[in-house]
């Protein structure tokens, strides 16, 4: 006879932990779906861009030598209005929104994969031959560029209005092949914040509306060949350097790609455009060719995704239903 203590396995008693686990999961699912609904609804919105209370951060986005939606070898320079405690990610997101680009894409561990939809999903820091292709993150000061070893979500750039002054957020798409003996190629754009965001006196920020949305597109003087075979070194240094005066009067280039990017936001369309049109002719053409289809697939993708989502959920439910029928049959 089995002894008293061993006889009968565990008695039938409700397992509290299991219930808690299931409940936690249900709660989690509800929270997540609500959150997803909320954030996909706000998807593409310019959340931070308009939240500016007069904080500005300069940013340089350099597509390097590759061909990109913004054109081969494009360099974008702009002064972005952001919230008070914005991170590097926030600045980048605000810049993308301002330019009408899709939001920057990150992978699951927080690595930045794409700016302005480049490179297209699912690529992320992929390899080409023995090299990696990725976005490198920099900080610029009057003295030059510094490579950042931390990610944009952890770093908080100080705004130009703050007491210590600001630095330039630098992004440069790197093809490992570019790496020379001297190290990684730097963003080709002004590293001096004053060259992008006009130094603001301690006057009230509200009185200087101009910087919001100002931007410059630097195109290397040597026209970049769409294969990315141009020589990037020299043009960087000779790129037109926007002074504070120049910024306010020259190219408010943000609007051009914005139109192609789906026309979400055109925060910077008040400035004259004729000169930009001339200067950006080829770039626009390139941007138009590549960006427009992306926008379309994006919209169509939404519809397809909804259908796919529906079918997928139905498939899961169907399999579960068959399973229930089977349980009835095998264990009546």
């Amino acid at each position, binding site marked *: *006879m*089995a*002894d*008293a*203590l061993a*006889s*009968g*396995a565990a*008695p*039938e*008693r409700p397992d509290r932990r299991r219930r808690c686990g299931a409940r936690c999961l249900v709660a989690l699912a509800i929270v997540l779906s609500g959150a997803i609904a909320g954030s996909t609804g706000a998807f593409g919105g310019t959340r931070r861009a308009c939240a500016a209370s007069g904080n500005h951060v300069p940013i340089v986005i350099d597509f390097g030598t590759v061909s990109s939606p913004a054109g081969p070898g494009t360099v974008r320079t702009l002064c972005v209005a952001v919230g008070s405690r914005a991170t590097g990610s926030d600045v980048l997101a605000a810049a993308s929104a301002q330019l009408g680009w899709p939001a920057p894409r990150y992978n699951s561990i927080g690595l930045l994969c794409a700016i302005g939809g480049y490179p297209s999903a699912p690529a992320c820091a992929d390899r080409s031959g023995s090299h990696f292709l990725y976005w490198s993150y920099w900080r610029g000061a009057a003295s030059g560029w510094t490579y950042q070893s931390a990610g944009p979500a952890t770093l908080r750039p100080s705004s130009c209005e703050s007491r210590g002054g600001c630095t330039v957020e630098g992004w440069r798409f790197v093809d490992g092949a570019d790496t020379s003996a001297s190290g990684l190629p730097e963003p080709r754009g002004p590293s001096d914040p004053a060259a992008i965001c006009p130094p603001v006196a301690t006057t009230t920020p509200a009185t200087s509306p101009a910087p919001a949305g100002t931007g410059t597109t630097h195109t290397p003087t040597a026209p970049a060949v769409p294969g990315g075979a141009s020589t990037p070194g020299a043009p960087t240094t000779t790129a037109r350097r926007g002074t504070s005066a120049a910024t306010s009067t020259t190219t408010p280039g943000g609007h051009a790609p914005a139109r192609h990017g789906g026309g979400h936001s055109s925060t910077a369309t008040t400035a004259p455009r004729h000169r930009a049109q001339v200067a950006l002719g080829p770039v626009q053409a390139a941007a138009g060719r590549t960006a427009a289809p992306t926008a379309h697939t994006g919209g169509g993708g939404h519809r397809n995704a909804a259908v796919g989502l529906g079918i997928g959920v139905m498939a899961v439910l169907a399999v579960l239903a068959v399973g229930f029928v089977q349980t009835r049959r095998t264990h009546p």
Partner: protein
Amino acid sequence: MIRFDHVTFTYAEAPEPALRDVDLHIPGGELWLVIGETGSGKSTLLQAINGLVPHFTGGELLGRVEVDGLATSTHPPRELAGTVGMVGQDPDAGFVTDVVEDELAYTMENLGVAPAVMRRRVEDVLDLLNLHPLRTRALASLSSGQKQRVAIGSALTASPRVLVLDEPTSALDPGAAEEVLAALTRLVHDLGITVVTAEHRLERVLQYADRVAVVEGGRVSVASPAEAMVGASVVPPVVALGRAVGWSPLPLSVRDARRLADGLRSRLPVGPVVPPHHAPDGDPDVVPLPGAVVGSTTRLGARYGSVVALRDVSLDVRAGEVLAVMGRNGAGKSTLLAHLAGLREPTDGKVTIDGQVPHRLKARDLVRRVALVPADPGMLLYAETIDAECRGADRDSALDPGTTRAAVERIVPGLDPAAHPRDVSEGQRLGVALGVVLAPAPPLVLLDEPTRGLDYVAKARLVEILRELSASGHAVVMATHDVELVAEVAGRVVVLADGEVVADGPAREVVCHSPIFAPQVAKVLAPDEWLTVAEVEAALAS
């Protein structure tokens, strides 16, 4: 067949050898019984036969052990698997597969027996041990008796020359034990297999044995069963009866004794006798029945999943009575005790102990009302020393310091308080466990299989303890297969079958009329209702 040649074995780091200069020759086709107190070296002797000692246990073996011409020094256990079949004490712990048929075939698979032969042998063993209704059953779903038979079967399929069994019937109900022993004798008689078995319950095995090996302090002496019984300090009831009456030669089986008993019957008073313990004018320390009800169950039902363990059980347990719960393995005895002890919540009906619902009580309140000693009393003990155990028990139950120590001392006097609970003998461990749970003075004491693993000395002491408990007004409920223990102490017997009460009444009535639960004395003197040797002696003296 088996030869021990001046074998001395010492476990690693043990001060004393476990076997001393053992010289033994066991011829083929005999059934040998190994007896001895717990810790005398019985298991070591058995394990030395197939080489588990020393190959698996470690330690130093001097001398030579040979089985069927193979020395265990050069042949590890796995090489001897085809020669020696080994069945351990706990069949459950030795199962390697999960289905009866696979378990039976396991050894043969390892030996590389041809598939066709395997099929035939499995069928043979299924028939031999009456296992064929179970062939596709999961091992986990079997009762202890069935498991024990499967374990024996799985050793037999490899058609070994020698079968070694360590207490094969200690966990079995009398019916299942008979079955197992019948199978063993059949193996010896029909197949010529050599069987070596250790057993505490001599009354079950003695009649079948060809020779008896008595192990005492690592030394082994060999005698015929009758010779061994003449000088033995502890003997089964049928031998004790023979001694008391002065029969010669001593009867070893009920059948022998019945042949001699005609003369005795005529000397004894006829008709039902009044037991000396319960005589109204007998010992003054016996509480007359019935006492107050200390525990009761009302239409108690218990279910595990779809298995019904108890159905409609209604019982009253009264102060001062010793109630034995008997029944087949898996009849629901342990479940009943678990419910009385508040370990389980009843599925149906209710349990009341001292006016309270036991499973709702806090542990601290529970121990003041009911005590349960499980079949493995060591489960209750977890401190490093007995003294620490006692002090812990005082703390847990908020008793005056020293109460538990005193209770233990009363039950097992003269125990070394610094000893580890694992190091004392089986009987002493039961005593310590009993003392620990009795210290808070609960009116109801429950014992599950208290004699499992106990030798005769310890059993005799247990009988005394139980009588003292009942005399001091405790209600004792014990679930047991040990019919001799029941005959000695129980006043009332409840028989369970498949979770239902099929008999409830005075021990004498219930036990004497059952072919399975009758003690040896009752069998010898049937149809007269005598239960114990002591009764017969008393009647003869008067």
